[in-house]
């Protein structure tokens, strides 16, 4: 942290680079251990179906519970980071995630798996993901999206690597042994959390209004400020959250149904699987490329996000159309394009949040966003399945999914200051009592496009009061 401080003080320079890249590496590892692991649990489900003699649907609830718990507990993780030190929250989350998997290795019935792999590990993952993302974002300004894109590419790469690895572990050690080893692997989140370093800022003292003892009302007030509940009453945040929720309804549909749709159109198992893998590969590429391009600063992040989401929605709608002709090449091309766009928008979804709510409230904002968008995500898959059951094929499902994504883009257009060329100033947050803090907040809030204008201006015109206008 010592390396960062002098840089932050010098005007016009963001806290980019240096130790920030170490944190990107930590986020890379922890994201792969959270989402990459979640995506590869399918290997175990085959074993569970046989061992516990349960239906595939009952077993699939394990990963649904885990994902839902991760998203549900995100605001809790954010609130705890606002109240206490981020590194300890992440380290605790890593321990919990590992504990869940270790306990799961001793499970004797299905309910045990729901509670351990689902709830306990999900709680751990919730305490890890949002805080780490917020920390990385706070450490970058000019290269924020690139940092996020690089870190999130780990999801695709790790699910690629984990599938054969988990299969090998199950072969060597049976599923119980493999889960135990996975618990150990998850424990590697703890050093990632330790890398965050001691807390740079804490909202605890600033929020304490009265120094009186702990009373119910003051606790509730503090809790609501840690959770950033007042954000729910702000129009820009609500608009953005609604847009992302609509996006989430349709975003996952191709992942669930593309293989089944390809097989229904008439392609073989291998062809269908290959389409999925190819889309996954362009997904990784899209994340990194979009991150790099966004940080060049030619366009506002929100505009780029709208472009990618519109394109993704259009390509989702084109997927059934392309396979109508029966041409494998057409399906492959559209899937590749869809993969690229969906990866591209992932990098930006989080990076836009501090533009809307300010870096100070970013942690809580991310937590709430995860919670609200999770509800939408839960809606998307059953809805598309229902449409398929009613109409007989996947055309309606894909059309509706693409429609939701485009609807999300349209909602984004209603954000205030959408059509202005520069980002609006961040909303009024805490009153900075210190010009240094205000200057640091100023350049943490600025976007890459603003950075080019700021150099040379900061010492002259922008006073702390100007940030409120």
């Amino acid at each position, binding site marked *: *942290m*010592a390396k960062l*401080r*002098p840089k932050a*003080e010098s005007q016009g320079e963001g806290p980019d680079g240096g130790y920030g890249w170490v944190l990107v590496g930590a986020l890379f590892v922890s994201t792969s251990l959270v989402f990459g692991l979640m995506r590869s649990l399918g290997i175990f489900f085959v074993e569970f179906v*046989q*061992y516990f*003699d349960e239906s595939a649907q009952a077993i699939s609830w394990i990963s649904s519970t885990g994902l839902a718990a991760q998203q549900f507990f995100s605001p809790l993780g954010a609130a705890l980071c606002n109240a206490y030190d981020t590194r300890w929250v992440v*380290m605790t989350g890593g321990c919990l995630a590992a504990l869940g998997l270790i306990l799961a*290795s001793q499970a004797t019935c299905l309910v045990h798996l729901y509670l351990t792999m689902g709830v306990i590990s999900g709680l751990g993952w919730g305490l890890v993901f949002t805080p780490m993302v917020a920390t990385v974002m706070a450490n970058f300004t000019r290269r924020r999206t690139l940092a996020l894109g690089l870190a999130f590419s780990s999801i695709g790469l790790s699910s690629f690597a984990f599938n054969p690895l988990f299969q090998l572990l199950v*072969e*060597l*050690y*049976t599923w*119980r*042994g*493999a889960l*135990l*080893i996975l*618990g*150990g*692997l998850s*424990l*590697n989140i*703890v*050093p990632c959390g*330790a*890398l965050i*370093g*001691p*807390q*740079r*800022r*804490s909202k*605890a*003292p*600033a929020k304490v209004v009265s120094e009186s003892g702990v009373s119910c009302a003051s606790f509730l007030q503090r809790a609501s400020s840690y959770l950033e509940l007042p954000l729910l009453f702000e129009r820009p945040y609500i608009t953005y959250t609604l847009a992302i929720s609509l996006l989430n309804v349709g975003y996952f549909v191709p992942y669930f149904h593309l293989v089944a749709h390809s097989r229904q159109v008439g392609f073989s198992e291998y062809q269908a699987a290959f389409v999925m893998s190819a889309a996954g590969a362009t997904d990784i590429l899209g994340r990194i490329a979009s991150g790099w391009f966004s940080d060049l600063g030619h366009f506002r992040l929100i505009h780029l996000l709208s472009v990618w989401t519109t394109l993704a929605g259009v390509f989702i709608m084109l997927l059934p159309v392309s396979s109508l002709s029966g041409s494998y090449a057409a399906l492959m091309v559209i899937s590749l394009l869809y993969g690229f766009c969906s990866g591209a928008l992932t990098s930006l979804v989080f990076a836009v949040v501090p533009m809307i709510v300010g870096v100070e409230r970013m942690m809580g904002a991310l937590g709430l966003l995860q919670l609200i968008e999770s509800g939408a995500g839960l809606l998307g898959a059953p809805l598309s399945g229902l449409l398929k059951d009613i109409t007989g094929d996947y055309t309606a499902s894909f059309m509706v999914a693409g429609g939701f994504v485009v609807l999300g883009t349209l909602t984004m257009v209603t954000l205030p200051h959408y059509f202005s060329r520069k980002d609006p100033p961040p909303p009024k947050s805490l009153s900075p*009592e*210190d010009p*240094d*803090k205000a200057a*640091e907040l100023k350049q943490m809030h600025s976007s890459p496009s603003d950075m080019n204008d700021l150099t040379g201006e900061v010492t002259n015109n922008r006073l702390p009061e100007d940030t409120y206008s």
Partner: protein
Amino acid sequence: MNLLWAVSALLLSCWRANASTAPNIITEPSEVNNQTSAVLSCNLTETTLHIKGSHWVYNGKFIEGSKSEEATAYTTLSLYNISHKSAGKYECVFLTEPEVKQIIEVKILPHVAATKHSEHGNENDIGVMVCVSHGYPLPTDWTWFKGEEGSPPTPIINGTTDKYEIKSTPNKTTLTINDLSIENDIGDYSCSGTNELGTNSDKIHLRVRSRLAALWPFLGIVAEVIILVTIIFIYEKRRKPDDVTDGSAPLKSNSTENHKDTNVRQRNSN
């Protein structure tokens, strides 16, 4: 006596008359048993009904391409490479008012396959082995055997001990072995399914792992994590002296105590 004869002759002729006016399908062959190919044919006789066409149905589902619009009373279906995927009940359907149909059963030996040919379990845990069968007719009997080196396989009988449990349905059988032991339970197991035509079987190899086998890699990883965390904290402690000398902007505090102090200082200064 004469009256009895007359009545029975009357009844017989009535019955014969009824029989002769009902449409009759003659199938050739009436049943297919364990052949690799066959030609099924149906001949509709003794009917005055108008025939609009015919088609074939396999296991209740219409067979693509078997529809014929010709008003003939004779229809055939050729089967090649009869396997468990094509065995079952074939039905020829004549499109008359009402429809007339007849079933020809195509039977083969049971097709028995293990879902996994290599299974493993943990010591003192349970081991589960599954065999499934496709085709027609499905096995009526399932038996499990434990194979030993150099001696004939011994059958495993359900219900004699707590050790083995066998659950069977016509298309799936599951053998559950309780309390696996490394000395006794490693080896080859075979499941065999029997139907009216014969028996088929498949083999599964069971491996039993020690409970502690995964513990060593796990402890290795835990040790690595502890070492990493220790290194990170030590590295930070060694850099800490640099932090303290670096000015006093509120965001740089290393602990909440410092934070409160700097805020208090600021408030006083304002």
